[in-house]
């Protein structure tokens, strides 16, 4: 009953582990790279359309094998991203749990939250710069504001929909409020909360880049704009690829965490529903 489970209804561990499965996935990656390589070779326009090979070499020189770039731009970006996302996770779970447990609170806050989450977060960049300046605080605040809503909504929904029998069992054995929260309600809502965290991570990456495109003095997004302004197209493409890789890696880490945390619930869902 989780978003993850619904997305891959028929995929099992066995499918993922087979050699054919792995080979096909690698082939898809190779096809993407090959398509770019062929397309750019045919275009024969190395300034705007550098080949895959050129981009890969530049990615290596500019970022991966360049400790200075990591310290000066990579780390600040990742710190903002993770800071904003973790703040969004904590705030989102706290607010979502309260809203999910208290129907009257959810009723009262519903219009306010619906309005706030309808604001496209990039639109808040100008007012945030005016109010908070152009420092890290502003960037973290922007990421927090944009990434918090999926967590709030999913946590509220997960908490409100804890199975009635599970809730009865917790009540019948007179568990303390702390135990009900930490040992029953939050674990029961964990699949939904993690689904929310995944969505909010993607939003956090987007907002990290956007906040660095304007009014920044360092960061991966800042490098991206600098490269564009200096007409260094190869650097632009290399940085775009880097951002893709970062998003992919973070999502992968979260998926591993999710698989570990939800072992039992996955087994149960597979078994009885």
């Amino acid at each position, binding site marked *: 009953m989780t978003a993850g489970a619904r997305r891959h209804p028929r995929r099992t561990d066995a499918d993922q582990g087979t050699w054919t499965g792995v080979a096909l996935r690698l082939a898809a990656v190779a096809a993407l790279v090959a398509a770019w390589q062929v397309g750019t070779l045919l275009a024969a326009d190395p300034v705007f359309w550098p080949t895959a090979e050129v981009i890969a070499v530049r990615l290596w020189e500019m970022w991966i094998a360049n400790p200075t770039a990591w310290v000066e731009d990579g780390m600040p970006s990742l710190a903002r991203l993770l800071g904003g996302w973790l703040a969004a996770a904590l705030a989102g779970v706290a607010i979502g749990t309260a809203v999910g447990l208290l129907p009257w609170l959810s009723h009262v806050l519903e219009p306010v939250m619906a309005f706030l989450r309808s604001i496209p977060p990039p639109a808040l960049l100008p007012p945030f710069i005016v109010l908070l300046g152009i420092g890290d605080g502003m960037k973290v605040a922007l990421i927090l504001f944009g990434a918090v809503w999926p967590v709030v909504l999913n946590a509220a929904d997960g908490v409100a929909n804890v199975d009635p029998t599970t809730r*009865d069992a917790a009540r*019948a*054995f007179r*568990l303390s409020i702390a135990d009900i929260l930490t040992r029953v309600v939050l674990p029961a809502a964990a699949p939904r909360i993690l689904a929310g965290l995944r969505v909010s991570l993607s939003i956090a990456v987007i907002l990290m880049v956007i906040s660095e495109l304007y009014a920044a003095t360092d960061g991966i997004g800042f490098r991206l704009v600098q490269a564009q302004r200096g007409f260094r197209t190869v650097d632009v493409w290399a940085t775009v690829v880097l951002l893709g890789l970062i998003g992919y890696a973070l999502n992968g880490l979260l998926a591993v965490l999710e698989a570990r945390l939800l072992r039992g619930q996955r*087994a*149960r869902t597979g078994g*009885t529903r």
Partner: protein
Amino acid sequence: MNEPLLAVERLTVIYPGRAQPALADVSFSVREGELVSLVGPSGSGKTTLLRCVAGLRPPSAGAVRLAGRVIDDVPPDLAMVFQDYGRSLFPWLSVHHNVELPLRRLRLPAAERRDRVTAALSEVGLADAARQYPWQLSGGMQQRVAIARAIAYRARLLLMDEPFASVDAQTRADLQDTALEVWRAHGSTILFVTHDIDEAIYLADRVIVLSPPPGTVRAAIAVDLPRPRDQIETRGLPRFAELRTEVARLIRRA
């Protein structure tokens, strides 16, 4: 002790928006140490009745008293085994922690909590499964964990809501005997809800028969079968067959 441990007095439950009450004017009592079965056709409000007794749902009229006190919230002296073990056990906790969780509120020293959990698990034959997770066990074993959780809690009144309805016949017979053993060893008081007439008679001192909706008490039948009960001997007695016929007639007569 003259006063019954559990007294259900003219209990009525009306769900909002439904004309017919789920329970109408239900009265019965359970003495300390008694094992009472409650049978009735589906929809006769058995689960609703048990939720009222557990303090999980307020009655629309009437009252439930536990040891003389009116139940208006979940009382401390009560443990419950639910039909759906898959949802009443917590899949994210190990078997040991599932049994231990309710003990945390009792402020027992850690060593005593551990002892109680170990004793309860070995009583239901699951001493070796403590570190496993509920979802790694069979349905029957999971329901044993739920029984161990109730034993370790040491409540005066044990409520069982169709606990063996979703396991196979052989496992069900084993679990019935486990329940009888627990009842005898602890001198507990059990209110056992089931729709299985044979099960109700096999286990109980008395069988209370509920009518089709709206649920009312149709009869309370004393089960004068000798104890200890035995799956083959007891069920083979002519008296067992007579009681079964009597209860079945009461249930069918609508």
